[in-house]
């Protein structure tokens, strides 16, 4: 039974890598054309009526936006877990710092009362989260890897505690409302009902979905560039063997701190978008269990691989919404699938780590050896 499943999964992987090979074999203009077509498809997705794929129960555009924002989170967390190999269990802390920065600097209700517009708040949020990443990383990145997980967990909980108990600053569970959003009005011709209304206002999530999608694409491109740069190679070396990397002259601590800061900045950016879209921020949005879901989406999808973590984010955030549509009942009680989400993805973590630790879409490494040298390799 087990071996059959394994064989089936190997065939699935073979199929996937076959697709990957074909893709890389395509001439570059074709790849660019297909890539652009896919991006256009993603932008049009809320208006295309694909049967079955569309969610009925929840507004489909909002679902797409939710998935997009968590793909952004996954891209950021992937830098920390997938590339640098640091298990960060408190990533929600950075998300929260980003969200609260926007709320505190932007909302007229906050104690700071600076009332900066959203576009000014975002760089502040990114700077503050980077700073908090460095402040957290400075003392803790020197300790052994498995301690880091607990310390970051503590950090996430600490941020939540400050959000909940620091009434003077965050207004606790009552929260901060009137968080600003980006400027812009819907032009005529998109939808007659929206013309002249705020593009990022409460009337529709479409503007936010498009904005988030643009940021996801930009951040993915940037993450790929970093991965293939000197910094990315240093991360890979540290992840595989920190001592060996140190001996080869890689300053492990410095690069780990960079990974932490960059990951934190992306978390802060997603938090800033989240705050602007929600328009309201309270301590209830940052449960630590969400942080475990963040880790689950990176690890289940395939840490280190951008396509993998995207798949992970889709599984964790789209699937419960879709399952909601089927209206399954047990003993006359309607099943709420978001209730079961943690249970299912907890199980998935155990199963995936036991049978395929690389995740559903494993990362493929290009051989850095020249082909001739690879042939000479002596089997051990």
């Amino acid at each position, binding site marked *: 039974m087990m071996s059959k499943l394994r064989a089936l999964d190997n065939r699935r992987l073979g199929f996937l890598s076959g697709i990957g090979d074909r893709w890389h074999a395509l001439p570059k203009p074709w790849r660019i054309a297909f890539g652009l077509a896919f991006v256009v498809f993603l932008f049009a997705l809320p208006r295309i009526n694909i049967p079955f794929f569309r969610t009925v129960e929840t507004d489909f555009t909002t679902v797409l936006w939710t998935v997009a924002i968590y793909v952004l989170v996954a891209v950021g967390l992937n830098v920390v877990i997938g590339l640098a190999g640091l298990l960060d269990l408190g990533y929600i802390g950075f998300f929260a710092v980003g969200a609260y920065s926007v709320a505190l600097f932007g909302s007229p209700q906050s104690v700071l009362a600076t009332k900066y517009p959203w576009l000014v708040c975002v760089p502040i949020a990114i700077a503050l989260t980077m700073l908090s990443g460095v402040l957290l990383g400075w003392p*803790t990145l020197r300790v052994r890897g*498995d301690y880091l997980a*607990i310390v970051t*967990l503590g950090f996430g909980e600490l941020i939540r505690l400050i959000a909940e108990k620091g009434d003077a600053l965050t207004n606790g569970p009552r929260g901060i409302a009137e968080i600003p959003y980006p400027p812009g009005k819907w032009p005529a011709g998109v939808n007659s009902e929206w013309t002249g209304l705020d593009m990022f206002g409460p009337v529709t999530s479409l503007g936010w979905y498009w904005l988030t999608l643009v940021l996801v694409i930009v951040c993915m491109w940037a993450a790929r560039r970093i991965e293939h740069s000197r910094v990315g190679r240093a991360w890979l070396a540290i992840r595989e063997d920190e001592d060996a990397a140190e001996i080869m002259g890689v300053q492990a601590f410095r690069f780990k701190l960079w990974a932490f800061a960059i990951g934190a900045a992306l978390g802060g950016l997603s938090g800033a978008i989240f705050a602007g879209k929600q328009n309201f921020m309270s301590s209830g949005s940052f449960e630590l269990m969400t942080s*475990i879901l963040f880790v689950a989406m990176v690890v289940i999808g395939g840490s280190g691989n951008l396509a993998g973590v995207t798949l992970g984010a889709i599984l964790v955030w789209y699937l419960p919404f879709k399952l909601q549509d089927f209206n399954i009942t047990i003993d006359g009680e309607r099943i709420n699938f978001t209730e079961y989400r943690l*249970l299912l993805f*907890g199980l998935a*973590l155990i199963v995936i780590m*036991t049978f395929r*630790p690389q995740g559903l879409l494993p990362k493929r490494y290009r051989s850095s050896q020249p082909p001739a040298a690879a042939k000479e390799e002596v089997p051990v």
Partner: protein
Amino acid sequence: MQFEYWLDNFWSLTVGGLTQGAIYALVALGYTLVYGVLRLINFAHSEVFMIGTFAVPIAWTAIGYGRDAHPSGLGSVVLLFAVGLIAAALASAATAMLVERVAYRPLRPKNPPSLIFLITAIGASVVLSEAVGLLVKRKPMGAMTLIQPKEVFTIFGTSVDNVQLLVVGAAIGMMLLLDQFINRTRAGRGVRAVAQNPDAAALMGVNRDRIILMIFMLGGIMAGGAALLYMIKVGSTKYDAGFLLGVKAFAAAVLGGIGNLRGALLGGLLLGVVENWGAGLIGDKWIDATAFVVLVVILMFRPTGLLGESLGRARA
């Protein structure tokens, strides 16, 4: 800062801290045992404790002592204490052994990096707490008051009641039993051997898998004891009651020197006291933040903890 308040209530804060710290210490023993032998953090240990806390009121209700019962007489109290202890220890030990079988043993032959074990343990922890949460519909569960708090004596003007005495005494007693077991029995020698050098121990005929399973079981029994004391002291539990206590107990284990049994006791008691002082100084609502700050400070200045890490080297 409420320095005045802290000074006025110094001894009552200390006594309260010691009581809470005794429970941390018992849970910390579980982390320390597993870390000492496997060099891995058993993230699911907080859930092992949580399931123990649920076992106590379930067992008491099963023998006719529901939420509102009032046991009278020393005999019935002792009997109920024993029933609660056995139920919690059984439930916790069974959970810990299940975690070992599901999240640790299948991976061990592949010898993966410790990060992989940590993720399966996180998975196990989430599954256990969510499963219990769904079973009890995320409602809290209360137990009867086994012992009415009654002042026994006063020290420096602070009254010490019987519950506090019982909690600290029972925790130290269990810890001493465990210490003797590890240091004096044949099985304990096996534990120390595997902790020191697993390969050499295997060559000398120690069954490594059995020792590891036993380690989880012992940690589970200690967590069961902690669960009973927690229910006597606090009186009610929730499906997520383990999480925060687990992180604090881990902090306690690191504080005393993870892998060191006596360190876990010292770390637990110390963390409880420091936490209570912190709460007295800067306000009650920050009590949960103190443990994290202590953890970070310890990792910065003395990552091996106060007594150093040594399960293998203790009486080598």
